[in-house]
């Protein structure tokens, strides 16, 4: 598959990628930038993609890395600005961003490892083996994290309802 074909195939997952970022509390416009960044990475690492693998899995792997890099970049900038003694503007966290949206809010309350498993296994509908590949963890861990995450989510929904 040529690079161009790969990119055009990858564009079919635009909405999946946008939602991947959006459900982690990223705003829509920032999410679009991150999707774009994911496609840039796909172009950069296209040689590492083997057509036998699922493209959606490869894209989510890149998207996850983009998200991690963005968080690190933001953290570095904040540390730098703090060291200059600037007053920090309040950064909008996922909980703030999702306050009016039950599902987004609840998912944002999970710890990062649980949130990732829910995002990939529930919303992106990847089989556990693919989730394990993206996260670099054993399939058994995916399974136990999924159970824990769903239990926590149920508790949250039940609490909110009561």
């Amino acid at each position, binding site marked *: 598959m040529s*690079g161009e074909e790969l990119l055009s195939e990858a564009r079919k997952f635009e*909405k999946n990628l*946008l939602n991947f970022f959006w459900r982690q509390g990223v705003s829509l416009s920032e999410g679009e930038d991150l999707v774009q960044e994911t496609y840039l990475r796909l*172009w950069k690492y296209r040689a590492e993609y083997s057509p036998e693998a699922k493209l959606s899995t490869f894209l989510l792997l890149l998207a996850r890395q983009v998200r991690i890099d963005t968080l690190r970049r933001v953290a570095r900038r904040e540390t730098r600005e703090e060291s200059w003694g600037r007053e920090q503007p309040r950064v909008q966290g996922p909980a703030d961003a999702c306050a009016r949206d039950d599902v987004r809010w609840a998912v944002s309350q999970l710890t990062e490892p649980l949130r990732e498993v829910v995002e990939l296994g529930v919303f992106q509908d990847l089989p556990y083996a693919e989730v394990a590949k993206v996260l670099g963890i054993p399939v058994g861990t995916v399974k136990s994290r*999924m*159970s824990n995450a769903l239990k926590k*989510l149920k508790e949250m*929904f039940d609490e909110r309802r009561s």
Partner: protein
Amino acid sequence: MNADLEKTLDELGPAYRDMVLKMKAAPEASPVGRPFSPFGASARRPASGRVPYLVAAALAAFVALAVVVRSAFAPGGAGASAVHNPYTLAYGGMSESAVDEMLRTQRPDGSWANDFITRQNAAALRGVASASVAYRRAVRYLRSKGLSPLSPAELRERGALAAKTLASI
């Protein structure tokens, strides 16, 4: 729902299945219609700001003709300069086709699809003699919003994709 998740839900009970179905049915974000291009070539614009279809088509035909004619006379023969991937250009370095693409897709107010792309494109056009007007328009737009083009350091930071990638094309 995939078989693995089904199995987990079977173990957890029907209440969990309902919960997951509701979660999956929750509203999702939709792309605003901009296919992702560093230049924002096809960004959705408000209907009131759209160029009438025929004018846009004529303009596109003219630009396509210009590109074909130019590439025919370019060193290396027909089509030699048309081989590029827009995803690499704003980061890796500037080629003439990248500049053309940016000039073609710049909005009348000097912006592109969004502020980030405008900052990126303005930075890329800095110092390109044939795009000085577009550069100034972009900078004026950015200033009006309290922004500036990406700095060389920011470009470098985002564009590890630099010359290496270009060289591999």
